[in-house]
């Protein structure tokens, strides 16, 4: 089979599964059967993606069909664009989707069959949308799939919709990402106005030939970047991601760690040739990314909810990727996206196993879980070491590449912020590890290791994380060659320092966490209240938006409605007055006719 057919198969299988689950209610209500269908479909997708990835020709493959007809050729097309970027992303998405769906069978075993069927229907739709986003060959199609993944995210965060926090979190995620998408769509339309095409290949050609008008291009690219800010949870639109943790943990692993939140990074990588024309926007991306990384890392330090720590760590790592893209190291950023997708999914699924066993998200109610759950402890440790960037795990190489890229890109201050973030990452992750798996207290209840259907995906992800890292180490370390020699040593040193610091604080208790909190009291209070960003948005919403709405409501109620009511009142009064001339006596009407006739005659004489 050729590349196009394979890509279409990978895209079509989850869609067929979603369609079946959506239109055949008995199948959906069957629960586990629905899950099996969905898993089989995404398994087929994964197979197709793997074959596609291995057999991909050097040049990109593009298939297009005309869509919106217009004079002189179609205004927009639909199609697929497969190159190495898309193929690697395809494999990551299909792989993590497959493993997460498998894992969900165990994690959601206590759900009722209809709820489970609904869950898998959403998952199939998500897989289709995300694969479609990856394969999109033009901006318009990408935007459609972009919104579809947003919808799936909304549906899956609100999967337990009877829980008020989950419903609120779903709505918040939807609105905050919409704020960014607004910029995205305006950017797309403006770009179309300038270039006359949505097609990536056409735009890249124009960028290479320097025929793309550069006037106003910076604004356009900034607007498109706004879409990525919303989706990839960059400052200041990162506030939705931690709240999105109200959804089931496998959903967090798939959508809010490995795939959908990386869509923003993927978007910037995808249209990187266009961003290269606007260095100012790229620099902004780098600064915002580094700032996001640092901000989220400080927030992750003070969270008590294991999933929220991971959520802030996701925001932080997305900041890393964006910083790399902004500094010009697109390959490094995308590399970090791939490795991060693997080990963050691993961490979330590991956290899910812990939550499944203990029944709470609060790390202070856990402890010494390595005795009860040795398997989970090992895989979680693998994920944590990869996230902290320890040799020879995959995260070490990608983080290194990012740091080297940012340094080479000349963004010195963002580089320092990222270096500090490396230290903080190790601290907050090992804080979780020491408190949850080691610590001095035992967890409540009787935790136990998870069944094979859940531990299988964990082991696969752990082996991939470690195996990829070792193969990279054997082959000379991927992108490392570009940066100066001292960067890997610096990064590793900072990470090890972070681990030691966390060990001293949370395991040995040599450093008192409370004393630290007192010393850095302003920072601690600020981080606990999320730097008041949520309050700020709430205030803006309540003060300005609701105030304005009230004003508009007043105008509508008293001005617009008033005019309408006035007109109707006048009509009523006139009607009431004119009613009196209708006496009902035929002779009176005849008087009218005769008198009118007379008037007409007189008038025609005197005219």
């Amino acid at each position: 089979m050729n590349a196009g057919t394979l890509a279409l198969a990978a895209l079509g299988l989850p869609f067929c599964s979603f369609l079946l689950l959506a239109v055949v209610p008995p199948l959906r209500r069957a629960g586990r059967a629905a899950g099996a269908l969905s898993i089989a479909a995404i398994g087929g997708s994964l197979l197709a993606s793997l074959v596609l990835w291995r057999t991909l020709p050097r040049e990109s493959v593009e298939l297009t069909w005309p869509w919106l007809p217009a004079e002189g050729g179609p205004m927009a097309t639909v199609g697929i664009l497969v190159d190495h970027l898309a193929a690697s992303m395809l494999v990551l998405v299909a792989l993590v989707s497959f493993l997460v769906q498998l894992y969900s069978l165990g994690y959601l075993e206590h759900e009722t069959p209809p709820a489970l069927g609904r869950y898998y229907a959403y998952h199939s739709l998500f897989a289709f949308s995300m694969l479609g986003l990856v394969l999109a060959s033009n901006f318009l199609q990408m935007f459609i799939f972009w919104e579809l993944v947003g919808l799936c995210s909304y549906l899956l965060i609100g999967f337990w919709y009877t829980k008020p926090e989950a419903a609120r979190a779903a709505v918040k995620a939807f609105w905050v990402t919409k704020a960014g998408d607004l910029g995205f769509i305006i950017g797309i339309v403006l770009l179309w106005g300038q270039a006359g095409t949505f097609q990536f290949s056409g735009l890249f050609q124009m960028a290479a030939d320097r025929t793309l008008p550069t006037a106003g291009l910076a604004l356009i690219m900034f607007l498109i970047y706004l879409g990525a800010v919303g989706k990839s949870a960059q400052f200041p639109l990162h506030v939705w991601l931690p709240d999105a943790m109200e959804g089931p943990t496998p959903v967090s692993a798939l959508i809010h760690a490995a795939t959908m939140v990386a869509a923003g990074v993927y978007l910037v990588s995808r249209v990187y040739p266009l961003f290269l024309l606007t260095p100012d926007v790229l620099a902004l991306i780098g600064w915002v990314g580094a700032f996001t990384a640092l901000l989220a890392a400080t927030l992750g330090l003070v969270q008590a909810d294991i999933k929220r720590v991971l959520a802030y760590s996701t925001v932080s790592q997305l900041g890393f990727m964006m910083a790399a893209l902004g500094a010009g190291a697109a390959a490094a950023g995308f590399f970090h996206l791939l490795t991060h997708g693997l080990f963050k999914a691993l961490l979330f699924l590991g956290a899910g196993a812990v939550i499944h066993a203990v029944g709470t998200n609060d790390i202070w109610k856990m402890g010494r879980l390595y005795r009860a759950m040795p398997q989970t402890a090992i895989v979680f440790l693998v994920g944590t070491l990869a996230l902290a960037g320890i040799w020879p795990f995959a995260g070490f190489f990608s983080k290194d590449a990012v740091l080297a890229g940012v340094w080479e890109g000349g963004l010195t201050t963002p580089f320092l912020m990222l270096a500090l973030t490396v230290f903080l990452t190790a601290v907050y992750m090992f804080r979780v590890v020491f408190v949850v798996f080691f610590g001095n207290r035992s967890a409540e209840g009787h935790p136990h290791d998870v069944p094979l259907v859940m531990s299988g995906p964990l082991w696969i992800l752990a082996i991939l994380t470690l195996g990829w890292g070792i193969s990279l180490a054997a082959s000379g370390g991927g992108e490392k060659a570009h940066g100066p020699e001292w960067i890997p040593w610096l990064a590793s040193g900072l990470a090890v320092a972070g681990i030691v610091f966390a060990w001293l604080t949370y395991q040995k208790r040599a450093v008192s966490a409370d004393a630290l909190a007192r010393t850095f009291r302003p920072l601690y209070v600020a981080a606990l209240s999320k730097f008041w960003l949520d309050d700020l948005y709430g205030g803006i919403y309540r003060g300005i938006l609701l105030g304005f709405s009230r004003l508009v409501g007043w105008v509508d109620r008293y001005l617009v409605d008033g005019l309408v009511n006035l007109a109707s009142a006048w009509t009523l009064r006139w009607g009431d007055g004119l009613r009196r001339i209708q006496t009902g006596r035929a002779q009176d009407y005849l008087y009218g006719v005769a008198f009118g006739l007379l008037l007409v005659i007189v008038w025609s004489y005197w005219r």
Partner: protein
Amino acid sequence: MGLQPYLILAACLFTIGLFGVLTRRNAIGILLGIELMLNAVNVNLVAFARFTGETAGLIFALFTISITVAEVALGLAIVILIFRVRRTVEADQLHLLKG
């Protein structure tokens, strides 16, 4: 004798008929007024036919007479029905169309 006296006669007849229709309170009186107005028209038709030599006016007059007969028959039937239902033929009291 010229055309004018006939026309004056017809106008007088028409006016008398109209006056009767407008002032009579009895429904049968109103019908009689209508008869007068129609006959004024007949006088006009016949007079014009006589003075222009066109026979069409005579034929129109014949038509009018026959239609008048039908109209009176219908009108009287309606008046009798109204009387059965309302026990009156006074036009003042028949104001079902009052707004």
